[in-house]
């Protein structure tokens, strides 16, 4: 807050660190029943969304994004994962994870990607959630109130089909045109009633099966 830039008070986008965060929204859901039956074990899903000022507003497509990413993305990762862990009860309870970014209409889709696709965000989210998989994601540009559906998969074994699932992230008044919503998401287990097999149980399926199918 005390940062001064050329004698003028800094705007949020120019301030270092988390001063650029306008709002943080936690969404948490616990499925008690699905299709009339309780899941084999209760699963909780959560997303945490931070609304930040877009630090690259008005910059050209050739502008390097590295400096701001290195300054802000690690702090966002810590903020978002900290709240995820509070909501879900710790990294040892987290089984699946995902991430997302939604850039306002005055920004570039690359600005959304910059916030979540570098090691400065991804490696920290993975490390803090104690996972090993690559993290699946959604990134988009949209107006305030746009609902982002965050895909998640298993934090150690990405191909584990039972853990393919999504959770919503929604901030009613963000992103404004000059903002970015950055999201981390996690789940404590699989879908409520997973029963579509896995790679280990699948038969060999190729396009040849279409030869026998009716048009």
């Amino acid at each position, binding site marked *: *807050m005390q940062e001064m830039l050329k004698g003028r008070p800094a705007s949020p986008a120019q301030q270092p660190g988390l001063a650029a965060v306008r*709002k*943080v929204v*936690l969404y948490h859901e616990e499925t008690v029943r699905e299709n009339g039956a309780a899941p084999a074990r209760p699963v909780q899903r959560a997303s945490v969304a931070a609304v930040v000022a877009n630090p690259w507003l008005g910059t050209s497509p050739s502008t390097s994004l590295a400096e701001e990413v290195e300054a802000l993305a690690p702090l966002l990762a810590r903020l978002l994962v900290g709240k995820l862990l509070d909501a879900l009860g710790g990294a040892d309870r987290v089984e699946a994870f995902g991430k997302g970014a939604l850039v306002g209409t005055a920004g570039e889709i690359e600005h959304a990607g910059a916030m979540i696709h570098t090691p400065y965000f991804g490696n920290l989210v993975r490390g803090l959630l104690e996972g090993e998989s690559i993290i699946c994601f959604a990134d988009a540009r949209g107006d305030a*109130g746009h609902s982002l559906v965050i895909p998640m998969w298993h934090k150690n074994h990405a191909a584990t089909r039972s853990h393919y699932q999504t959770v919503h992230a929604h901030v009613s008044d963000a992103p404004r045109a000059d903002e970015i919503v950055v999201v981390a998401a996690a789940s404590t287990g699989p879908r409520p009633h997973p029963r579509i097999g896995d790679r280990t149980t699948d038969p060999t399926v190729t396009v040849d099966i279409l030869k026998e199918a009716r048009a």
Partner: protein
Amino acid sequence: MNVRKVVTIVEEVRREGGREVSPAACVAVVAAVIENPWAGEGFVEDLGPGIDAVASDLGKLLASRVVEALGAPVEAYGKAAIVGLDGEIEHGSALIHTLKFGDHFREAARASTLLPAVEKRGPAGVAFDIPLKHVTDATIRSHHQSLEVRVADAPHPDEIVVALAAAAQGRPQQRLAALSSEQ
């Protein structure tokens, strides 16, 4: 009471009007997605038995969870009932407009005023705004506020979303003159 899922949302505002909000302004909502107790029964004249079966347990569940989610003394509060498309708005109102439901929250929040409410019918994913007012004096203008909520897959046509909202303070950057200053 047949609960399908319980949703918790916590909003924390750190900046408003370009200025820092310190401490951050915090509002929490807990919503239960339940089966409409009167689903498939046609027009039910006497809603009393359904209210008796559901309202108190539901009020108790939501009150304890929303106070826990807020993690601070409750200064403003509100409630909501969003009925799926096959139900009557009267079904949602039945569950929330009874002391059996609201008193759990009043007790947990050390509150005394009426809970402001939104009742609405809509499809899954419908957005609704929960109005909140001060817990002991509904004329305290600084605490008039609302929070938008949306549960992506609820209510189904035969469900009701019932929610409680709690705020730890008034609006961020609140600066309106008190009602008494105009009287």
